[in-house]
């Protein structure tokens, strides 16, 4: 029982970065502009958040500047796509590679490290502990003492749902994706709505990145994001950006992630369990794509 609780706890911890990024992806997806640059946004936020945290000694500053870094990437992305009308896929992929280069350059040039960055001065994200949960052993393991972005990420599912379906902004956001012509006809600016989607999306990806370095791992590594930006893209695609589907899919991937780290390596070589999340992503996107809204690189809105 306790083992199961521990496992579920690990799953929830690993769900959070995917969930945050995928919610971010959802904001752009519903507005008709798929976010291909999540990997890069997460990576740069993770790096900047970590560096700011150990230079200022404040996790809050780390969080803030990590998110700002991702938003900055989002601004570049939006500028190229919305203003210069460049291909959203090409720019997204370029930005991912760009940010990989920037991160590698920064840790090499300024910290003389090759693939990782670790400092004892880094202030990690605080954990939320609720005393009344501590009394029950199982509940304590399951629900208590998470780093702050874990509960926040689940709360943001609710917020996203309300924004999408209960606010005028959400209405225009979804309209920009499903019927852009009608939006322009009614006098609203498609570019303005989509610009907001880019910024919100980047901020959420920034939270995801900061959670990985300052919350989950406690250090920065170039392989930290390890394709999670694209796993998040898969999650967004087969839920068509619906926050509830995003939550369910993120949980499934979080469980797969946790399982891949828990399979004892004495029985099978460590490479096999690590393949699990990637295989599941391919399988999931294959099976679900039949039902999801068609989405190919050639039919761009």
């Amino acid at each position, binding site marked *: 029982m306790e083992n199961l609780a521990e496992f579920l706890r690990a799953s929830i911890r690993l769900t959070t970065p995917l969930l945050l990024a995928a919610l971010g992806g959802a904001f752009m997806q519903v507005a008709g502009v798929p976010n291909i640059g999540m990997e890069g946004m997460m990576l740069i936020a993770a790096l900047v958040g970590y560096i700011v945290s150990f230079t200022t000694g404040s996790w809050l500053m780390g969080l803030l500047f990590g998110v700002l870094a991702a938003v900055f990437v989002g601004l570049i992305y939006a500028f*190229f796509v919305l203003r210069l009308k460049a*291909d959203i*896929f090409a720019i997204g*992929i370029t930005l991912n590679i760009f940010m990989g280069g920037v991160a590698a350059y920064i840790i090499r040039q300024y910290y003389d490290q090759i693939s990782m960055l670790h400092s004892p001065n880094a202030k990690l994200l605080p954990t939320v502990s609720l005393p009344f949960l501590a009394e029950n052993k199982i509940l304590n393991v399951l629900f208590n003492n998470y780093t702050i972005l874990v509960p926040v990420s689940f709360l943001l599912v609710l917020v996203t749902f309300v924004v999408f379906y209960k606010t005028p902004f959400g209405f225009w956001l979804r309209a920009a994706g499903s019927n852009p012509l009608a939006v322009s006809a009614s006098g609203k600016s498609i570019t303005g709505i989509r610009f907001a989607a880019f910024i919100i999306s980047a901020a959420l990806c920034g939270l995801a990145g900061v959670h990985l370095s300052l919350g989950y791992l406690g250090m920065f590594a170039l392989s930290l994001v390890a394709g999670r930006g*694209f796993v998040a893209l898969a999650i967004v695609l087969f839920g068509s950006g619906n926050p509830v589907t995003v939550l369910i899919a993120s949980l499934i991937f979080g469980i797969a992630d946790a399982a891949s780290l828990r399979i004892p390596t004495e029985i099978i*070589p460590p490479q096999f369990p690590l393949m699990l999340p*990637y295989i599941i992503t*391919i399988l999931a*996107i294959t099976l679900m794509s039949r039902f999801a809204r068609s989405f190919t*690189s050639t039919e761009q809105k």
Partner: protein
Amino acid sequence: MKATNKIRRTIFQQGLSFISTIALALLLGFVMLWLNGSAPKDVLAAAGSSTFASPFRFANMISRMLTIVLVSLAAAIPFKAGVWNIGGDGQLAMGGFFSAMVGVYVTSLPPVLHIGLAVLAGMAGGALWAAIPAYVRLKFKANEIVTTIMMNYLAALVTGYLVNYPFRAPGSANAETSLVQESAILSQMVPLSNLSTGLYIVIATFILICFLDWKTSWGYEWRVLGSNDEFARYGGVKDNRMRFLSMLIGGALAGLAGTILVLGSYHKFILNLGGGIGFTGVLIAIIAANSPILILIVSAIFAILSNSTVGLEARLGIATEFSSILQSVIILLVITRSNIWAGITKLVKRR
């Protein structure tokens, strides 16, 4: 006559804006380094010395260029047909591994046959790795950007397992295969360098791809598919078959890049064989997919860039990773070059 003149002029203008945008980006790179405290004069000297100072350095640059050309074509052929192939890295690794298997474990063959067999195996390995995302894309509409990236991570793990356990060189401290047989080695062309007779294989492949692109119906159908798939289908192009084929060819080309690294440079399969070079190929395909010649030009520039940063690091202490930043900046500027030049013209006219 008038029409062809006009076309010629457009092609000339396009080429000019392409090249001058790259020059602009390089200039920007100089300015960035200047602001960072390195005088342009020193930068040029350091960069030049690492590529042009001695024959083996130049040969190393050419060797790198061969890999870049192949991975760029690997992304560009599917890109032409409207499919993204971001999986060059994984395809390169699988191709390299397959060719190493043939190189190590097939014995007593004459060199020509042995090399031929290893090259075929390498291309098959790459094509196989591309076939999976291609199949799920065409059969189930599974987004290939996601699946090809996932296949990269899978290839790294699969080859990681294979060279750590079943095919690890006996007694080796590293995760790598044994050396390939003497008969499978592509011999060195310039002493001390990585450049091997794989050069001829790449030249032949490049000519073949140009031929396919310009002179056969395949090339035409890819272009039609990439630009307007509705029209292509009405015109009788078997769209799914052609797209699948383009991915297979892309995978085979990336596999060939891995093969040449194994048979020509390392003489064994090592982990992280390509070192992320597949992404460089994607970048180049994004701006140069329309033309194999452009791919050749940009590959040469990128190869010189990444070679030069070795000199920059040794002499001026600028991390080699700077080249990947500069490459991305080049791509972003080239994608939007028409906006940039329009903006500059406007500014000039206002004055």
